[in-house]
């Protein structure tokens, strides 16, 4: 029984994995400067994990997957958005999602007020969500047991 795919696919996906995660993190962090953002970068990060699961199997995957921690990460990502919005409501200009942090210099990585925080929050949430969905479906349908 050969679970997963061949050695070629496994090696390439294992070598490609860190670069894909790095690219996803880059897209998330530069969400307010370049095309992309939290949703897109989160999906890229999740796709790198799913690629490993498809190349290896769910059991032989080189990454260690903790279901509970991923669920907690997803909740933290969602809570970050609400927290930033409420901070803007309470401490800022009195608007929901009002800017609290200074806008900074246009084009810098640390600029844009609350936008990088929101992008990071939604990136974490989307990555954890997609990983969870694929994990649940792969485990339930037994893709790698054939």
């Amino acid at each position: 029984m050969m679970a997963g795919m061949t050695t070629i696919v496994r090696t390439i996906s294992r070598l490609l994995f860190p670069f894909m995660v790095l690219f996803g993190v880059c897209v998330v962090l530069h969400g307010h400067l370049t095309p992309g953002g939290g949703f897109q970068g989160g999906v890229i990060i999740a796709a790198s994990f799913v690629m490993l699961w498809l190349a290896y199997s769910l059991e032989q995957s080189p990454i260690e997957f903790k279901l509970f921690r991923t669920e907690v990460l997803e909740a933290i990502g969602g809570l970050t958005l609400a927290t930033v919005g409420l901070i803007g409501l309470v401490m800022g200009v009195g608007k929901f999602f009002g800017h609290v942090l200074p806008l900074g210099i246009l084009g810098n990585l640390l600029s844009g007020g609350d936008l990088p925080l929101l992008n990071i929050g939604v990136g974490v949430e989307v990555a954890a969500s997609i990983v969870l969905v694929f994990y649940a479906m792969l485990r339930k349908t037994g893709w790698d047991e054939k």
Partner: protein
Amino acid sequence: MRRVVPFVAVLVVGAILIFTVINYLPPFGSFPQRKLGAFENQSIGQRILENGPRETGATDVVTSVVWDYRGYDTMGECTILFTAVCGVLMLFLATRGQE
């Protein structure tokens, strides 16, 4: 006959669409000006394009719309995603407690 009727229907609908696109759509690059509230003679899209980087500090206008002008809407989107994932986990990992 069974083949002719769908083919003719496709041709007629395609001709109507092509005729409409050629005659009634605004030319490429220009969009209809919306007169709404305080923005007389100035569309909302043009206003956001011009003022977005200065008001939100983001060079990506899409991000400034998604997270600043429409931040509330996007948070609702994330809530929908969260709820959907909760539903999927409930459906697919429902037997976890019994193992």
